[in-house]
Each structure stands twice: as structure tokens, then as C-alpha cells.
């Protein structure tokens, strides 16, 4: 029913739909070839085919600096942007705890945060905090894996109305805060 080209084009489509980033021909070659390698021309051909397949749809295949990616076509951009207004509700407890640990223990690695919290810290949380410009990578610890050292930023201080990190209340005072009506398991 489908030609070989179509099958490859659809493989590429699936990859681009889930990768969340642009991909180069070389990357696609590596991912599409299972037993025998696919040559670059075949990938280019499949990309052209994909462009045609998508012609009537909501997505377009575009080439950007870092490769090819799928994006929403212009007529649907306005609808899709309504999703953004939908987003902000609350930051998760996991995010707030991660932020608090970075604030008080900076510079700190993701591994150290995980150790203290006892659970994995999702990449999403770190990314959101970076996107929010509340944290940044200050360097790397010179140990195997070179984990990134996270610190808070000036924007973080601004957001929380602090002039400097030392204005954060000492940890000892937090215990009192807990005493005064913070419900731990409210949900």
C-alpha cells in the first residue's frame, strides 16, 4: 500500500513529532537505519516526500539551522497560542522544593538535590526554572559526569523581593513556620 519512500517519510514524521527538536539528516540516518544504513540521499528524498504528504495538513516540515522540524502552519498558529494563556496554574511542590534547595544550598548539583529529596528531579523542572530565569548553571563539578552546578539568579532575588541571598530567613525559623498552619498533606 505504501511505497518504501512513504514508509521512511512516515518514520521521520514520527521521530520529528516526538523529538521536540530539529534533527539533522545525519541524525535521521542513524535513527532510521536499523540493520543496514540508509544513505543521506534516501533521507533527503524521504524528507521531500514528507513535505508532500503533509501539504494538506496542519503541520509543515521546515528546515532551520539545526536541521528539520515540524511546526504548525500559519492558519492554526492563532488557535494554538490560546494554549499558552491556559498554562499558568501553580508550580508543583516538586518544583518549589527544588528551587528552595538551590536557593539555600547553592551551588548544588541535580544529584545532590535528588539525594536530599529522595526522588528524581525531572528535567522538566530544571528546564522550567531555567526558562523562568530563576536558576542557571554556574559551572561543572570536576567529578565523573561533570554534573552542572546550579545557582539562583538575580531575577530570582527580584522575584522574591530579596536584595541578597542572605536575606532568606535562616533555616531554623522555618520550623516555626511549619508550626503555624502549614498543612503538609492538604490534598
Amino acid at each position, binding site marked *: 500500500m505504501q511505497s518504501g519512500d512513504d514508509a521512511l517519510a512516515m518514520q521521520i514524521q514520527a521521530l520529528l513529532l516526538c523529538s521536540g527538536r530539529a534533527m539533522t539528516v545525519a541524525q535521521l540516518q542513524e535513527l532510521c537505519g536499523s540493520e543496514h544504513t540508509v544513505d543521506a540521499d534516501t533521507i533527503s528524498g524521504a524528507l521531500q516526500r514528507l513535505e508532500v504528504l503533509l501539504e494538506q495538513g496542519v503541520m509543515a516540515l521546515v528546515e532551520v539551522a539545526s536541521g528539520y522540524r515540524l511546526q504548525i502552519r500559519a492558519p492554526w498558529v492563532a488557535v494554538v497560542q490560546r494554549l499558552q494563556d491556559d498554562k499558568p496554574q501553580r508550580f508543583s511542590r516538586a518544583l518549589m522544593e527544588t528551587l528552595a534547595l538551590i536557593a539555600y544550598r547553592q551551588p548544588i548539583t541535580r544529584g545532590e538535590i535528588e539525594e536530599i529529596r529522595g526522588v528524581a528531579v525531572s528535567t522538566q523542572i530544571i528546564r522550567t526554572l531555567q526558562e523562568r530565569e530563576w536558576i542557571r548553571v554556574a*559551572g561543572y563539578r570536576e567529578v565523573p559526569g561533570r554534573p552542572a552546578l546550579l545557582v539562583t539568579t*538575580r531575577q530570582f532575588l527580584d522575584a522574591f523581593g*530579596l536584595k541578597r541571598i542572605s536575606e532568606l530567613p535562616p533555616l531554623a525559623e522555618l520550623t516555626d513556620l511549619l508550626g503555624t498552619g502549614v498543612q503538609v498533606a492538604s490534598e
Partner: protein
Amino acid sequence: METLEAEVRVVRIDGQPWQDWPEDLYIPPDALEVALERFEGPLDLLLYLIRKQNLDILDIPVAHITHQYMRYVDAMQGLRFELAADYLVMAAVLGEIKSRCLLPRPSRDTQEEEDPRAELVRRLQEYERFKKAAEVLDQLPLEGRELLVPMLALPEVSERSKIWPEVGLNDLLQALAILLKRAELFESHQVSREGLTLRERMSEILEQIHHADFLPFIRLFRLEEGKIGIVVSFMAVLELVKEGILELVQADFQAPIFVRNRIMAGDEADAIG
């Protein structure tokens, strides 16, 4: 068919077949760690023994096991004691069952009295059900594993900044307070003011060097802060050097010392992922 059966009987530990599983509930101390990993507790072990080794729970030399259990529980000195305790309880249950089976019973009561093993069998059956349910659940397609939900980036909005949830300092402190209460992780000496000042200074230095890449060592000190301020700054620099973030360089003997950021700006973005 026969090979399949043989395959089932082989317990693999770290890829190595393990054939010396006990014929009773006693686990030798040196195999305990392995057993704790392999079996989800005494019910699981007991099920395995009944299913795979045709263990007759009536035939277990309970006194012997109990004695051994006591010895190795002593030896463990609290190491994962709570898990060992579960196995110990099971040995006690088996002992109790056996003793009740051995006791002569008045013949007219036989109708009413429940078989002493019934309760244990009921528990084993119940556990086995959920053990299977867990296996079934584990085989279901899972989001992120077999169920993949596509997602395209939202089109970039021209300078319309993203809308973020509002957060106050109090939210942050509450999050930390909850974390503290949950884990009780900060020991008192880490709470001290000094630690915070040192870390704060480390961050400030990082901030300075972030914009410059290269700074005269002397610029990191503020004389107006007095002796303590200078000591704290000095310690902060040492700490950062120790962590491999900064590097101290000196072109020549008695030349000014410079502090260099060892991390090239630019590779920040993909560092965390």
C-alpha cells in the same frame, strides 16, 4: 517442554543461575541481600518454595530455622532489620501452624475448627493475585514507554512574554519547610549563618566572573567588609577552586593573580538535560 520447565526453575541473580535456594524459609546471612532483592518478602519466598520446590509447609524444620534466624538477626545489627523482621515473623507463623497441627484435637471439634494452615494459605493466595496483577500492569503499554504522545513546540510568540504562575517568598519557604520536616536532612551545623554567608559569597563571585570570565584576584575582596569579609571571600574562592569551577592563574612570580572561569560560556544550555 522440559527445557522450559528447567528454565523456570533456575533463579538468576546478576545473570548467574542460582540453584542453591533453601528448601526451607531460612536464608543464609550472606545470601540475605540477594534474597531481599529477589523476593518481595516472606510471602513471595514462600510462594516460590511452594510453587517451584514443592515445599510442604508442614515439613519445615521450624525449630531449626528459628534458631538460625535468631542468630543471623543478631549478626545483622540493625542492617535492614525491618525487612529481616518480616521473614522472622513468617518463621514464627509457620512454627505456630506446625505446633497446632501436631496437637491432638478432640474428635468432635474437628468439624468446626479451621485447618491451622488455612489462614496462611488464604494470605498466600491473596498475595499471589496481586503479584500477578502487578506483572500484568507492568506489561501494559505505558506512557513514555510504549504510548508516545507527540508534542510540537508552540510557535514562537513575538516578544509576548510567557505567563508564569505567581509565587511568593512564603510559598518557597513553605516548600522548604515541608521538605525539612519530611526528611530532617539539615543537621544543625549546616543551618549556621556562616554556611549561608559562604555560599552566598560563592554565588556572588560566580556572578561577577560570569560577566567577566577573567578577573584580578584582588577584585574579589571588599576591604570595607573587614577581616571576616575577606576571610569569607577567600574561603569562597578556595571552595570554588576545589569544585573545579574557578582556576587561579599567575603569569609570573609576584605577578598579579587572576581568577579564571574554567567553564566556557555557551555550553550551559545542554549541560543539564
